[in-house]
């Protein structure tokens, strides 16, 4: 855990290259459940990772602190913690600080100190949500680029990321994840090819309450990154995943797009598909592609993007990485492999492989109740294809 910010791209390659297993499950009725199933499911795809990174995101686990930004921070040692806590005290009102409970696990070697804090923006009570969020983003970026021995890896409200070096099931054991309950969980098992792996580099990647788990290599990384830099996002981790997270932050939070539209920017419809849409849609999707062409994610990828109340699965336009969708009552499952879903839910109402670039969206606002309304069909909303 030395030089936390430098270790991710050890050989200074263009970017970190990795492959992986991903899994997401959400109870769209909002009911909370433990991490038991997702741990089992992701462990079933053990072979897709190589033990150099595993992680989970949980939503709805801190209802008692739902209004507080829950910062989860890795430290090199207690001195670095003391230093950073002074910084936090300066910039935030701190309701609570505690060490994240852990459980010694044989394969988890040299873990960093991991603490969590429930924070509010100092003097921010009267300012708008967007301003508070901007402030938090700024502080997280500040800590993560400047502090050599501390790393904020989770910063949203009523959600948390737990991640580290190891297989995901080992990380789960280490952080006692069976004991948490949430209505939305995502998980990731990592297979980096060009980095020794470090705790902060594991997925999910997080900013505010956005998390991204990602499988793939984005060939458009170079331009996606240069585009985002124009909006002040510094891609210090040099991973595709980071680019996805910032792109979503820009599009959702700053430019105000719903997920259905964001999906159509990241995995834009072909020009020929656009030309077959009705006039009004044509204009809309053409404009989006003209303006946000630099955010088109090209090359193979599957991502599960989550934030408060919503989980989205998306593949690249020609689906070069796997994604399977399963539904059962109000549950939505997303996985790299169908077997992992069947393991935890053998009698699915429906299992299918979505089209390339077609987002699969689970949302508390549109709970899945019966098989008929199955997955909220983005097409019907956007009139696409």
């Amino acid at each position, binding site marked *: 855990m030395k030089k936390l910010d430098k270790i991710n791209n050890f050989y200074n390659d263009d970017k970190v290259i990795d492959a992986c297993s991903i899994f997401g499950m959400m109870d769209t009725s909002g009911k909370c459940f433990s991490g038991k199933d997702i741990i089992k499911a992701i462990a079933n795809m053990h072979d897709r990772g190589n033990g150099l990174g595993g992680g989970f995101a949980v939503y709805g686990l801190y209802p008692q602190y739902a209004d507080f930004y829950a910062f989860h921070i890795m430290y090199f040692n207690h001195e670095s913690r003391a230093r950073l806590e002074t910084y936090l005290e300066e910039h935030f009102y701190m309701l609570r600080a505690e060490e994240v409970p852990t459980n010694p696990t044989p394969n988890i070697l040299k873990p960093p100190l991991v603490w969590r804090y429930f924070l509010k923006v100092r003097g921010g009570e009267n300012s708008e949500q967007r301003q508070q969020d901007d402030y938090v983003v700024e502080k997280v970026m500040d800590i993560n680029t400047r502090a050599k021995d501390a790393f904020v890896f989770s910063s949203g409200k009523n959600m948390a990321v737990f991640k580290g070096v190891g297989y995901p099931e080992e990380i789960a054991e280490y952080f006692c994840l069976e004991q948490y309950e949430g209505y939305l969980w995502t998980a990731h098992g990592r297979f980096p090819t060009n980095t020794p792996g470090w705790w902060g580099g594991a997925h999910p990647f997080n900013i505010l309450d956005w998390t991204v788990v990602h499988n793939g290599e984005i060939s458009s990384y170079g331009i996606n990154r240069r585009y985002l830099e124009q909006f002040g996002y510094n891609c210090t981790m040099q991973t595709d995943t980071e680019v996805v997270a910032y792109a979503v932050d820009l599009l959702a939070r700053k430019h105000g797009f719903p997920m259905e539209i964001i999906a159509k920017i990241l995995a834009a419809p072909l020009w020929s598909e656009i030309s077959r849409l009705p006039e009004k849609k044509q204009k809309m999707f053409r*404009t989006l592609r003209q303006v946000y062409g630099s955010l088109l994610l090209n090359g193979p990828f599957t991502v599960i993007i989550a934030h408060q109340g919503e989980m989205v699965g998306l593949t690249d336009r020609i689906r070069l990485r796997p994604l399977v969708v399963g539904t059962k009552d109000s549950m939505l499952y997303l996985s790299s492999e169908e077997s992992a879903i069947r393991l935890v839910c053998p009698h699915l109402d429906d299992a299918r492989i979505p089209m390339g670039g077609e987002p699969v969206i689970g949302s508390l606002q549109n709970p899945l109740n019966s098989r008929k309304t199955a997955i909220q069909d983005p097409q019907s909303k956007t009139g696409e294809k």
Partner: protein
Amino acid sequence: MKTYLPPKFIIERDQYRCTQCQACVSQCSFDANYYDAEDDEVRSREENCVGCHRCVVFCPTNAITVRENPSSYRRNESWTHEAIEDIIKQSETGGMLLTGMGTDKGYPIFWDHLLLNASQVTNPSIDPLREPMELTTYLGQKPDMVKLTSDSTDIETEITNQIKLDIPIMLTAMSYGAISLNTQESLARAATEAGTLWNTGEGGLHPSLRKYANNMVAQVASGRFGVHSEYLNMARVVEIKIGQGAKPGIGGHLPGEKVSLDVSATRMIPQGTDALSPAPQHDIYSIEDLSQLIYALKEATNYTKPISVKIAAVHNSAAIASGMVRAGADIIVLDGLRGSTGATPKIIRDNVGIPIELALAAVDERLRKEGIRNKASIVVAGGIRNSGDVTKAIALGADAVYIGTAALIALGCHVCQQCHTGKCAWGICTTNVGLTKRINPNIGTRRLTNLLNSWSLEIKDMLGGMGINAIESLRGNRLHLRGVGLSDTELKILGVRAAGS
């Protein structure tokens, strides 16, 4: 005065093959071949030969070989043949040396020091024969963001004046007068068929080409030849020409002999008068003047056309380009050191300007740093030789490229650099009626569309190899480039990493 210049080329005629048909005599517009009736033999005046290979190609028995004169002076690295012969020419004429085409000097060609990437293992390459591969490009100003209506079913942000190109390759400015009407018609038709744009150059629009106006860039240059409201309003794009890579900082001169009745009508000047384009635009002495002209043209076209501004790539291109964008240009065109022309002083062509690769890299980076890259599209010109150059230009940050010389080569040009003489044996760069007939617009169109088609197939293959299926994912994506044999400074300016790193 006896000339001290030796012939540049040796013409060898295989007497066994030669049938005295005299094809070479009629084909050579430089009077380098003649028929000696007394001896019933075709002979050559080698001192007139420019090496254009017209006779070689048209000799029915392949009897002719044209090659560089091998006789040499005493070897001298400083006093090269060219240095010596330029002085001889000037001491015999007392004038500036004029020439055509782009510089033939060995300045570094950075395209040849940049290499593209391909996918292996960690991501798959995409097969363009089986998967969609998109080259569609829209030129024009883009807003910073798009605003949706509150129900997310429509957009509030109106985006206007977007020019759709089916391939990111346009045919550059070549005026009627500099090139023949048949040549211009070939360019116009090919652009229309290929879904791209052609450019009038500064010579106005001949009435017979009006039907191709929908794919036309109407140039407005310092001479304002042929510029009128209808011309502007017919075009897709209006382009203000400030400079040209082959002759940065100087104007143009179409000699009176080339100003035929038709040319004079198109340019709106009297027949037989020299068409002089002043060096600067006399209403643009500063950036605010440029802005005024841009908005004057926008007004004149009722804000329905993107306005392009073309400059030669010079030392401060980045700063100038940033000013151009802020002045309201929707498209900026950079024409590099190796850019071509119908006529230019040789000393300017060979010594002024900077390579397009460096200018492009610097301009793209500067506009991004200033957060205004979306405000204008970047088009580069000057020395694009093949689809590899196009692909590398796009990876460096260009939206599209202009080709000129490559297009003329497709029509027959052999880059003999005699464009300024008006004698072009290939019928391209001339208004001589006998010669212009050598370009048949039907065939010319086909040769050009073939070229554009083969380049677009090649670009798709390269994109697929990189694991990319839309050109916008390559644009400005310099991680797909690596440099070989470049200094650290050059790599830094180009914004690419060294191969192997």
